[in-house]
């Protein structure tokens, strides 16, 4: 496995399709927050109003850790078991996390008071739509740094000495 020090980049067409899929789900489910992130918790897409970009990064990191910890839980009982979807509730909210194609995850936070059955159904369709989309999306590695190893060392010393 290569290191995944990457920034994800989507083509304009893929972005438009992704936005449409998210919009459809958001209208139907009235979900407050939607996150698409990788297994390391790097946010690819965040949709919601009440969290800052930094808070969204924290939420995605913890969602990723919770999802994989839950998978470990299942694996202790049965090594062959796999986890694709995780749903849990707090007093006020419902959390849904699912695995997507290509090492991505989707997380949704919804206020309680919605019909859980409908929310789960919408979420199931949402995951199917996202998987269809992610199956065809090209992940582009954006090489953003143009430093030599020596320059990099000097720059890090400058910033962190």
């Amino acid at each position, binding site marked *: 496995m290569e*290191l995944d*020090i990457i920034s994800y980049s989507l083509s304009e067409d893929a972005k438009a399709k992704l936005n449409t899929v998210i919009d459809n789900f958001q209208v139907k489910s009235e979900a407050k927050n939607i996150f698409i992130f990788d297994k*390391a918790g790097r946010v690819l897409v965040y949709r919601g109003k009440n969290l800052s970009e930094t808070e969204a990064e924290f939420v995605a990191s913890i969602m990723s*850790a919770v999802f994989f910890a839950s*998978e470990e839980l299942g694996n202790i009982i049965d090594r062959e078991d796999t986890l694709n979807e995780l749903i849990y509730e707090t007093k006020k909210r419902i959390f849904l996390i699912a695995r997507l194609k290509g090492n991505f995850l989707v997380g949704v936070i919804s206020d309680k008071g919605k019909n859980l059955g409908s929310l789960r159904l919408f979420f199931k369709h949402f995951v199917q739509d996202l998987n269809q989309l992610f199956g065809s999306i090209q992940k582009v590695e954006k090489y953003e740094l143009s430093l030599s190893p020596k*320059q990099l060392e000097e720059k890090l010393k400058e*910033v*962190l000495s």
Partner: protein
Amino acid sequence: MKLKIVFFGASLAGKSTTVRQLYKILKERNLTKGDFVSMETDENRTLFVELFLTQLPLDGEQVDVKVLTTPGQFRLHPLRKAILQGVDGLVFTVDSQKGREEVNFLVLREMAYVLKEFGYDLYKIPVVVQYNKRDLENALPVEELQPICNPWDAPYTETVATKGIGVLETFRLILQQALRSYVEEKSRK
């Protein structure tokens, strides 16, 4: 660009202290984003994870670095594994005290197992070994710890995390290690 750096090591080796000191130092320099997030037990032991975000200006780009610790207690192995998903660089925090050699080695062995399971090449993943508690009288010489704790012959630091000594250097070294492989890969393409 976003990086995920994870501190791992034996229970009570000083991972949390290191990461808290690092957060404090970086916050004073306005290099942090948001608060320090901690999930710990009633005894102030790490239960799940501690994390913070830092943003560094490099080459006109902002590099976001997510710094996490794993819980050190052996029984929390499944949680350590969950946190290591997608890691870009590892800091192995070693308790330098005499009598802790075996536990340091066991942690290292467990980490090797997890990384292998994830498909990482153990000898290619960026690592820095942090020899902590260097101020204690019973700290073993680094030359004695190196064969046990540093099979990579990776760069190492000597730290006193409680006083913040060597903490920033450890962070700089792991970033250097992680980004160097990226820069070298880029120059090959």
